């Protein structure tokens, strides 16, 4: 059924989330909060070198320390052959994943795991790490993307030959892949152009910086069965990867989805679980591992830093006739940067006749990148939206008008193939034009910037079960870890379909043994895909309830209608019966066919793409180079907001992360290739006093492929901020900042250089 045009009673309201009280009282259980009888503490020894051959590992002294119960190295794990795995929002190879979890012959970045211990206390485990003697042959290393592409760069992998070029290169290199997209004839397009802008932009790797460090508790039983408590974006992902890396049957692994303390893409792969299982197996006791913040920075994936070149050509009226981009993305120590989306998302907002995009996926001696909120899109869009601002200036055109002139619409064919369908970009631009922020003149001394952003959003496999309990209350179970309030939206959609008070519905996240397969929480897919499964399961329950009412009344099921949580005889011909509500039907369940429950699994298609536009006013302190965000408005097509507060929260949170990416966040390396700022004091994410209120404006262009019109909302909001802020700085100072972060020293230097 489709409810887009229906009069909705629950969807669009703002009830308190079902897991809320647990979280404001400290009762919610995250992985690090779990314990088990006889539990040991696991710790990981990490390479101090950016690039080194591991000559030997002597664990005997560590094993001899009283309290140490197990030590593992790569020798304790199967040597995994090369095999493509699909990891959340980007491709990865199982062999690389295994080597990232535990280095085998080479340490490829500072912080790369080389051994692990389990001991009775954390302190003993720490001492044992120091007693593990690893002999290294230190190798030349390379950190930056362009240096890694140089012909004489130290090569990380002897067997890495650039994919995507013919003929296959004769020599291995750090360029893992070349991606190209072409549409039309870009050369001819530039010949037609009357105005051309060109620019080179760089972005720094930034960490997802979830406040909860990675953690898990694993217990290996003598019969080979394993229980894992993990804080992850996908407990089915944890099960699959742990099974693969340890050569186990998935049926022998049960993963409990602990509450997750933020992920933003960074918890779509595993680091600790196979290690904890291996230690538990060896020690015969449960093992808990939790990373320190320093380990999170040194040993888990940020998103790529990048080098991006953009060239755009337009007619004098603003019509873009050619667009070109070259992107070089750092992948970290193993292939698999978000170069694909990087190549697709930059120009996806526009209807362009001639496009040429080339992207490079490049390895270097840094932690392997992980997905981070709209992976690749913020990077490519920083470059394109900065260039669009320059184009508007060169044309003497309003930046909003330039976007309106070239905006992608339904039917626009993208340069990477698909045709945009059911998109709401025009509605977003209309909302910008109508918004008081845009209409208010810029205050004296401030500058205003505008930028837009796009993300595909995904659907995919999800399972949901709806149980009508014996008293008529309802439990919804899904396989989607809830990071930002999705249990609330699941309960609301089910309550809407059943026609009951949302307080009578409780949603939960079921473990891997208790619900059908569900793809991880990522790609802004949960409210869309899992929501679709939950909605359909609720509809099946309604069908079942109607049948039971029909049987009770001995009338045909077609003569029963379901309304406001009750079965009614449909019209006077059906007979005169008192309506049966959920509680009455639940009470009689045993006599009308047994438990009332429905499970639905979907492979959801038609995730509506998302578009957003951000307006930002800044002040630049010319003495210090400090940028203050004075006003911030984020406008986005959200399809249909199930719980508007949590939709706004996604937008506000994404914008704040973008502000950090724009103004503060970066990895600082020393001359040995070691990270110098692996803590929140020196890697500064935005704090409350760094940001203003962020106004989130919800534009609702329903996605017809979802019963309630939902489209994903979590990722788009991190796409526009960097360019919006850069464009505002340009407007305030006349200076273009092409390199992130636009931190005070860099802004100050740019202002000085401009005189």
């Amino acid at each position, binding site marked *: 059924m489709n409810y887009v045009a229906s009069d909705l009673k629950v969807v669009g309201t703002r009830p308190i989330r079902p897991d809320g009280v647990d979280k404001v009282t*400290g009762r919610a259980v995250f992985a690090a909060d779990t314990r088990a009888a006889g539990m040991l503490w696991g710790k990981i020894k990490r390479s101090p070198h950016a690039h080194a051959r591991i000559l030997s590992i002597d664990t005997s002294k560590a094993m001899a320390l009283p309290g140490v119960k197990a030590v593992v190295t790569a020798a304790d794990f199967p040597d995994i052959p090369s095999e493509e795995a699909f990891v959340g929002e980007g491709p990865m190879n199982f062999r690389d994943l295994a080597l990232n979890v535990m280095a085998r012959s080479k340490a490829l970045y500072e912080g790369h795991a080389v051994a692990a211990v389990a001991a009775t206390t954390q302190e003993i485990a720490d001492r044992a790490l120091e007693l593990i003697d690893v002999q290294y042959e230190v190798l030349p290393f390379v950190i930056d993307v362009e240096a890694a592409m140089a012909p004489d760069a130290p090569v990380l992998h002897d067997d890495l030959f650039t994919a995507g070029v013919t003929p296959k290169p004769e020599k291995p290199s750090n360029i893992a892949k070349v991606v190209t997209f072409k549409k039309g004839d870009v050369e001819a397009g530039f010949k037609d152009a009357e105005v051309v802008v060109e620019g080179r932009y760089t972005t720094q790797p930034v960490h997802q910086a979830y406040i909860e460090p990675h953690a898990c508790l694993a217990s290996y039983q003598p019969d080979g069965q394993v229980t894992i408590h993990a804080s992850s974006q996908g407990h089915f992902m944890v099960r699959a990867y742990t099974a693969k890396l340890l050569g186990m049957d998935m049926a022998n692994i049960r993963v409990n989805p602990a509450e997750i303390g933020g992920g933003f893409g960074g918890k779509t792969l595993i680091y600790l679980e196979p290690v904890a299982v291996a230690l538990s197996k060896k020690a015969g006791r449960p093992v808990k591992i939790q990373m320190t913040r320093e380990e999170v920075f040194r040993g888990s994936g940020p998103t790529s830093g990048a080098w991006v070149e953009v060239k755009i050509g337009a007619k004098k009226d603003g019509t873009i006739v050619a667009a070109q981009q070259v992107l070089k993305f750092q992948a970290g120590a193993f292939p698999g940067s978000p170069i694909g989306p990087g190549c697709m998302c930059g120009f996806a907002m526009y209807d362009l006749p001639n496009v040429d995009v080339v992207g490079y996926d490049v390895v270097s001696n840094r932690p392997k990148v992980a997905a981070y909120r709209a992976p690749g899109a913020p990077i490519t869009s920083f470059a394109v939206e900065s260039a669009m601002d320059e184009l508007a200036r060169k044309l003497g055109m309003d930046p909003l008008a330039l976007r309106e002139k070239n905006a992608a619409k339904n039917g626009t064919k993208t340069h990477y193939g698909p045709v945009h369908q059911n998109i709401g970009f025009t509605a977003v631009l209309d909302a910008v034009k109508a918004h008081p922020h845009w209409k208010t003149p810029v205050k004296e001394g401030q500058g205003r910037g505008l930028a837009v952003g796009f993300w595909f959003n995904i659907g995919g496999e999800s399972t949901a079960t709806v149980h009508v309990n014996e008293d008529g209350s309802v439990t919804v179970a899904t396989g989607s870890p809830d990071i930002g309030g999705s249990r609330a939206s699941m309960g609301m959609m089910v309550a809407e379909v059943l026609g009951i008070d949302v307080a009578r519905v409780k949603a939960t996240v079921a473990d891997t043994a208790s619900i059908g397969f569900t793809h991880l929480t990522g790609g802004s897919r949960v409210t869309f895909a899992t929501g679709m499964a939950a909605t359909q399961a609720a509809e099946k329950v309604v069908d079942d309830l109607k049948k039971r009412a029909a049987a009770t009344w001995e009338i045909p099921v077609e003569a029963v209608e379901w309304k406001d949580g009750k079965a009614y005889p449909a019209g006077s011909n059906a007979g005169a019966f008192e309506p049966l509500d959920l509680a009455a039907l639940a009470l009689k369940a045993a006599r009308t066919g047994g438990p009332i429950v429905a499970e639905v699994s979907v492979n959801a298609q038609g995730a509506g793409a998302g578009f957003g536009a951000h307006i930002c006013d800044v002040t630049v302190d010319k003495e210090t180079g400090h940028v203050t965000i004075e006003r911030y408005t984020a406008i986005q097509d959200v399809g249909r907001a199930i719980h508007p507060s949590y939709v706004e929260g996604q937008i506000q949170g994404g914008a704040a992360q973008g502000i950090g990416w724009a103004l503060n966040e970066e990895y600082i390396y020393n001359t040995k290739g070691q990270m110098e700022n692996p803590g929140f004091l020196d890697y500064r994410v935005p704090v409350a006093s760094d940001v203003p209120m962020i106004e989130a404006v919800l534009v609702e262009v329903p996605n017809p492929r979802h019963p309630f019109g939902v489209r994903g909302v979590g990722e788009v909001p991190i796409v526009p901020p960097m360019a919006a802020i850069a464009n505002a700085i340009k407007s305030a100072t006349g200076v273009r900042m092409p390199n992130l972060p636009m931190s005070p020293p860099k802004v100050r230097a740019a202002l000085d250089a401009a005189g």
Partner: protein
Amino acid sequence: MAKQHVTAVINGEETEFLCETQQTMLDVLRDVIGLTGSKEGCASGDCGACSVIVDGRLVCSCLMLGVEAEGKAITTIEGVADGETLHPVQQKFLEHAALQCGFCTPGLIVAAKALLDENPNPTETEARYWLAGNLCRCTGYDKVIRAVMDAAAVMRGEAAR
């Protein structure tokens, strides 16, 4: 070295515990006493997820030794509500959807309570600077600040609970 015996009042209850001299108050709360509401986000006093109130003062429990608790009164997130009645800050966090993942939430709520205990009528700027020691990566702080300001109004009797 032998473990130290410590007596403190934790969430209103006299509590005895044994701890190593080097153990932090956060580790004592989480691993010795079993109060896991206080979270470790950094163990260096930068994120505020482990915030507790010690004799009326807001403290990162990861920067305090367990032995320093001797004779002190400590309030953790588990002690903020009055039985079944949530503290106004907790209630407003729920109503304003001021949490997403919920990991930083205990520390933010303890810190906000400490703010309002000291300053019942903070400006938005004062609230933002007071809470600048509590990192939240999910919300962008907008709804957090609204919840705290609204809770302050409730506690002053100017707004409905």
